[in-house]
């Protein structure tokens, strides 16, 4: 009696690569790598029409940035073309320690006041906010002895006690006071 030779029990694995490719292409196409990054901000509390807080800030401590509806900048009453120049100006203002009589008394008193018109574009607003926040991040990073990038990582992850300690030490007597006024005409 002749016995038929047994068929090998293995499955042909060649089309597996094709299937994997197909799935790979599907996920490649549908992937949107999460873009959850941006400029973070804390809005002021709800306005209370009855008791307005008394504002008593000396003129020299305020660093004023105005943007009109044609996206032109007015920084400390002088027109400015390039928003990137604001970064150094903010640093000079905050780190003045009372030397220049037109700039802030101390970092604790310094305020950046920032006002846009209703017709200002969002793009320029973000560009200016980026520079002002960047100036502060640079200064905090210097105080903490890290790079700006590292500082932002630390500030984004305060769950870690070590990060929190560095964060609070660098921000002590050095608040980031950015006042953003309601857009007006």
């Amino acid at each position: 009696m002749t016995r038929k030779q047994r068929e090998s029990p293995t499955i042909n694995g060649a089309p597996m690569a094709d299937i994997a490719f197909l799935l790979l292409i599907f996920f490649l196409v549908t992937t949107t790598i999460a873009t959850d990054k941006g400029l973070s901000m804390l809005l002021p509390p709800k306005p209370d029409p009855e008791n307005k807080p008394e504002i008593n800030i000396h003129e020299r401590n305020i660093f004023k940035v105005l943007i009109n509806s044609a996206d032109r900048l007015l920084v400390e009453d002088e027109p400015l073309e390039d928003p990137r120049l604001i970064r150094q100006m903010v640093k000079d203002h905050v780190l003045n320690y009372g030397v220049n009589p037109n700039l802030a008394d101390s970092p604790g008193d310094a305020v950046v006041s920032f006002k846009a018109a209703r017709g200002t574009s969002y793009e320029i607003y973000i560009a200016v906010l980026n520079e002002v926040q960047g100036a502060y991040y640079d200064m905090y990073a210097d105080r903490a002895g890290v790079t700006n990038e590292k500082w932002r990582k630390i500030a984004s992850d305060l769950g870690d006690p070590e990060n929190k300690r560095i964060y609070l030490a660098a921000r002590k007597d050095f608040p980031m006071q950015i006042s953003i006024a309601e857009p007006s005409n």
Partner: protein
Amino acid sequence: MAKFKKKSKTSQEIPTASLPDIIFMLLFFFMVTTVLRETTINVHQRIPGATELRKLQRKSLVSYLYVGKPKQESFGTEPLIQANDVFIKVDDIVLWVTQEKDKLDEVERDQITVALKVDKEVKMGLIGDVQMELRKANARKLMYTTIINIDY
């Protein structure tokens, strides 16, 4: 007689047995990183660039508002606010925030973060109105979603 090149005995083929493994590895990477989009965005989104970006800490606390010109012309050319799947008016933001807060755990409700995804050309008047409503709704943590700008 001239000696011709001897034919090499070694196989010229690359073994492809490990190819599926490599592909699977790539596949798993993309499967893990993929976030299937839950909402269809109905407004134009050209996100502005910035350099001083910070990462959102906890994604579960984030709610998104999309602002831009509607993609469908029948909705007009003025920028609209989209929340979840619908267009909402500025006055509805307080209600929307309340609904979003209800989705969170009670202890985390005050930590809600609103991510604003705004088109470059939207005017600040509308954004100011949105921010005022968010202040009224006591959702004060805000994130202007931007992309990284490498031109600086």
